[in-house]
């Protein structure tokens, strides 16, 4: 095990990385004097993972719930005894267990490892979690953002794991049995499938030592015999049509909402990395950001309700897409104008005239992201997912980006304009004619 130190002068921040026994990765950003420490265990157990021919949809999420339930009781209560607050979430590529606490995070490390590595639960507990998850699924059904997000992805990617709801549906949850869940746990909850990120006030050597001890105590050995094939998708195949696909859903809302998902396509041999993520972020700001002609036109035409417009880049190692959303009085006109703005964005000269402003803005946003332990953990995880050596790669990548490079990645990535559109309409949505 060797401990590596990385330093970024612009930020005056340091990062320590180490790989512990079994391939367990540790990324640490000490922030002396911080009153809050955030520690996150990220397990590569998400919707896209497969075992025995079955995807992780529903499975990874159920496991996330069950691991909190030890035979001795809810482990979250024991974190509370230490003044720690534990939470977890499941996503496309992984499950994250996030602890926030004050100083003394080292004391919580054994409990965190017990949480993820100790896979004991009862049948009764599984039944209880089925009911709680059924209620969770019902809760999301009333959330227009949730419905719009998945519906737009479904139109963009078709019947593909990226567009599947993480918790699955009730019938899928009913089919989960303890045996399969145990095998999933034993397969994916291995040291070489987990990364640990921490930022806050702690002593690096002490934290490292606490992790090594806890790893020896709790982690399953990395026996090749016990390992199943982990088979994440190399690339999510978006629909190849050069036109957008539409769907409309009625929900009891007052303002219609539009969600546009635009996949970022890679060419052969390319990979997703922090440079690409930044290039798309900069492009989106130059094409649809609040200071652009297109946005102002949408706003002044009354096509954006209040401050509801959002345009984001979502990028993980296996897929990337733009997500544009807004509440609007005229969803059809909003969508048409947005696609018009995108189709007019493929002019190199426009990028040249605006790149300095966009880069300066991005620089400020990046520096601000390193301000809190939570922001640092988020950046460490994002950087690792995109194959970077650390979060400081974002700063270096921004320096190297030119208007030509940004433009080329934009045009090549989203120039196809084949996206998925979801219109979430008020009950009397018949007034909106679809294409």
């Amino acid at each position, binding site marked *: 095990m060797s401990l590596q130190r990385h330093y970024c002068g612009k*930020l*005056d921040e340091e990062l320590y990385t180490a790989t512990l026994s079994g391939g367990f990765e540790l990324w640490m950003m000490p*922030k002396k*004097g*911080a*009153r*809050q420490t955030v520690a996150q265990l990220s397990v590569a157990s998400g919707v896209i993972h497969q075992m025995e021919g079955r995807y992780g949809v529903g499975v990874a999420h159920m496991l996330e719930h069950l691991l909190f339930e030890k035979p001795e009781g*809810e482990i*979250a*209560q024991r974190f*509370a*005894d*230490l*003044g*720690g*607050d534990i939470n977890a979430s499941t996503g496309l590529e992984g499950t994250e267990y996030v602890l*926030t*606490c*004050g100083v003394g995070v080292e004391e919580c490390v054994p409990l965190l490892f017990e949480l993820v590595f100790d896979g004991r639960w009862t049948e009764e507990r599984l039944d*209880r979690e089925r*009911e*709680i*998850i059924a*209620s*969770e699924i*019902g*809760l999301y*059904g*009333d*959330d227009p953002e949730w419905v719009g997000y998945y519906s737009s992805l479904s139109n963009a990617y078709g019947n593909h794991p990226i567009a599947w709801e993480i918790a699955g549906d009730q019938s899928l949850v009913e089919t989960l049995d303890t045996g399969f869940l145990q095998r999933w746990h034993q397969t994916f909850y291995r040291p070489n499938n987990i990364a640990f990120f921490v930022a806050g006030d702690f002593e690096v050597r002490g934290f490292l030592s606490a992790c090594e001890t806890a790893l020896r105590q709790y982690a399953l050995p990395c026996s090749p015999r016990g390992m199943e094939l982990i088979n994440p998708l190399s690339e999510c195949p978006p629909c190849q049509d050069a036109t957008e696909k539409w769907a409309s859903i009625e*929900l*009891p*809302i*007052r*303002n219609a909402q539009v969600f546009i998902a635009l996949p970022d396509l890679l060419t052969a041999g390319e990979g997703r990395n922090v440079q690409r993520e930044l290039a798309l972020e900069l492009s989106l700001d130059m094409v649809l950001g*609040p*200071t*652009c*002609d297109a946005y*102002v036109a949408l*706003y*002044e035409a*009354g096509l954006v*309700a*209040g*401050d*509801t417009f959002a345009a984001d880049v979502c990028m993980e190692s296996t897929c990337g897409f733009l997500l544009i959303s807004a*509440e609007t*009085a005229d969803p059809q006109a909003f969508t048409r104008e947005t696609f018009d703005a995108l189709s007019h964005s493929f002019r190199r000269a426009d990028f040249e005239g605006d790149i300095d*402003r*966009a880069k*300066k*803005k*991005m*620089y*400020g946003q990046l*520096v*601000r992201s*390193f*301000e809190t332990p939570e922001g640092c953990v988020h950046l460490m995880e994002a950087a690792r997912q995109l194959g970077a050596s650390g979060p400081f790669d974002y700063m270096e990548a921004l320096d190297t980006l030119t208007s030509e490079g940004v433009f080329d990645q934009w045009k090549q990535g989203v120039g196809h304009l084949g996206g998925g559109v979801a219109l979430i309409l008020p009950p009397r949505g018949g007034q909106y004619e679809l294409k």
Partner: protein
Amino acid sequence: MKRIGYTSSSDNFHDLYLGHGIYIHWLRNTLCKTIRLDLILSQAFRRPDNAYGALVSRLGERGTIAFPSMQELGRAVDHLYGAFLSTDVSVLGNRHFSHVSLEVLAPKHVEKSDCSGLLLSALDMVRQVAMEPLREDGEYRERYVLEEKRSLREQIISLYSDKMAYALRRCADEISGARVSSLGNEEDIEEIDAGRLVAFHRDLLRESEVHFYISGHISARDVIAVSRQIPLWFKATGRAEEKGKYQTETPMADTHSVRHLFECGQVKQSKLIYGFEVPVAQDLRSYVALLVLNALLGGEITSFLYRYMREDKRLCYFIESQVDPLLGRAYVLASVEREDYHSALEEINRGIDDLKGGRIMLKEWTRTMALLGHRIAALRDDRDALQRMNIRSLVSGFPITLGEMEYHLSSIRLEEVVHCARTMTPRVVYFLYGDQSEATVN
């Protein structure tokens, strides 16, 4: 300059009174990579002034004399190293607040040539947005007024999309007997007289209490520079020498019965809001007692309602409680199936009865206090939270500081929390249910 009464330790904002109802508050935190500038204008809450305030706030972001469009204003802000500008309005107790905020990088993170001028440019940007909105022939630009009225209306109705927030607002309105909204009501916005906006803005600058917050990676020189600038901004507004202190009003209940309100709202999962009145906190100890009460009831995963409703009875995934010690309100929020209405109510009452009866195990008490202690300690790095606490001090009339909160938390006794629980008076049960289920609600 004199120091005012509620100033506090270094973990909280320092406060300076500059005369003419103008206050400066500063907080130094070298862990920050930014400097935040917040101008807050505070007035008594009145209808329809709240709607006027909300509209004037939005118009500030539409353009200024120097940057007459939102595009030009936005670009100028972006060139301040991606500074973040925002305007908004809020209500706390019986006060309405208009807020202009700008966050800019600290000098150590920008190029040397920009170091000295960045903060002053940012400061001037705040001044322009708050005080020099674009005018044509002495009036706000008509098109901007129309567009922002529309935006404001849409912002209000978008609340209907979040069913839990909608249900909570309905319950709160029922308890108060009136809508207390920072944005105003749809009808108030419709009736705004564009000709009165300039006079409203002038009065806002002349009559509001002015609170200017500067926080983050700042130096003493920065604080002095700001303290010299702010009074100059208001020199020409004709402000009076001294302003009166806030009066905190204790809302009086008009009825002692519990009202049960049902609304069919095309939701897939029903939303249950149980609203209570609690005595308005008169000092920090009673404020902290209410926070502990909330944490024990439904504010934490260690709480009664989390265990009873989610873990034991599996009635819901989402359950929480909220308390507003300055308004004297407490709410329990749950997303349940329609047919579980009575069971859910039973479990909520069970939790409250257990609190009233002091049936709290030592382990539960210790866990809850540890979690709350951690949350309070973590606030030391949270400028937003510290600023909110500072404003709460102004509204409540007693100091709310981290050190004293920690003291009260460490010394508070179970009897004090039980006493708080016994003062909880149920007022309104509001139930928003879907029409898919055959179950009946009586």
